[in-house]
């Protein structure tokens, strides 16, 4: 039985952040800073989204020398649909934080 529960505000914030640039790949620390979520809240959300096929993940293909590859995330079509449905809930938990450039912390 598939549950169609409304996403939590934290999940909605993650969805909103990812949906802002549907084609771009984001990494965890960046998402955490943008949504003000700690890793302990962010990663379970990412795991659930991935379990449900709403998030795809990959390892950074060409990491700079001396730095390990990062895990990157973006929404699938199902994830984008969920993000659109959850859009009104998202801004409540989002704080204005500058978007970090990929590759930097």
């Amino acid at each position, binding site marked *: 039985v598939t549950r169609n529960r409304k996403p939590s505000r934290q999940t909605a914030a993650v969805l909103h952040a990812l949906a802002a640039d549907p084609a771009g790949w984001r*990494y*965890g*620390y960046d998402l*955490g800073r943008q949504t003000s979520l*700690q*890793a*302990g*809240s*962010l*990663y*379970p959300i*990412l*795991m*659930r989204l*991935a*379990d449900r*096929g709403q*998030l*795809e*993940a*990959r*390892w950074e*293909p060409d990491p700079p020398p*001396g*730095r*390990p*590859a*990062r*895990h990157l995330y973006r929404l*699938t079509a199902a994830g984008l649909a969920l993000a659109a449905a959850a859009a009104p809930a998202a801004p409540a938990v989002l704080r204005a934080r500058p978007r970090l450039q990929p590759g930097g*912390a």
Partner: protein
Amino acid sequence: MSGPPGGDLARRFLAAAEALMPASRREWGRAMLAELDQVAGRAARWRFAAGAARAALTVPRGRRLPWLAAIVLAGAGCAAGAAIRMLAPGAGVAAAVLVPGLPAICAWIVLAARRPARQDGLAGRVVQVAAVAAIAACPVVALQAITRYPQGSAGPLTGGWLVLMMVFSADLTCYLCLVLRPAAPLAAGRRSGLLGLAAALVMVGCFLLHQFLGVPAAATWAAAPAAVLAAVVLAARYDGSPLSVMGAALWAVLLGGLAWFIVTMMTASRAISLDARDPATIAEAHSQGAASVLAWAAADDLGASIMILTFVFTLLIIMLSAWGVLIAQDIRRSTPAAASQPSDRCNCHSYR
């Protein structure tokens, strides 16, 4: 920013948590570790590591709760509770509820929280099945022995008894976790599992020799550590890997402890049922027996057996498990390419 070579404390902390993740979630653990390497500042690194460790240790199950297991355990608990009320009415309602209830709830939590991992190879599976059977037998034989104990029908359980039962249930739950979902480095491999099983059989054999052929008790007590030591030495000789040695010791202590406890309970129960026919024995037990749990533990074999399994073996198992995980971490650190290199199969996918 990367941490110092080999990882700072925050990274080691998160790596330890990652080692405890189920194999199906290990990729996420590596992702969190890779992300930690980008975080600058000690405080920020600790904040991230603490949060990520919490995520690692409470990973979403990704499946529905095992309702069938809940129904079976609830049925078994009710049946056991009714049996206690019939067999030992003097133990009180609290005992009839708590004695079967606590292990049943603990077992359900284990099954609900973590998917049992199937051990690799026939030897691993044999060891896993043997350990689960032994863990299931522990509360049964303990209950049988206690209900036959003369003091068992003397009155309701005291607070000390209830605390002991809770600790006993918690221990069995930990054993079940270890058996059903061991940290990957400590899974029962072919050599470590079989050596552990052999050590357990040696312990039981020595105990039976003591019980039925009159071999001195000191020899029995010496045989237990000797059997564990032999398993360790053989593992070191044939493999030499620290993890294999640690695995052999861990499984020898776990299986040996459980087997020894079951045999002790059964023989003590048998002796009690024979001796209790004598009114003087019952009177003696009442006068010096279970006035308190500690006195009971010190006074007779039954109490000592429960205490040893509950505390001594558990302490050993915790130490061996922690040691094994630390060794595994050291090995992974010494081969950074294997530890940090993402696997090819994860190049682009969604986790389903």
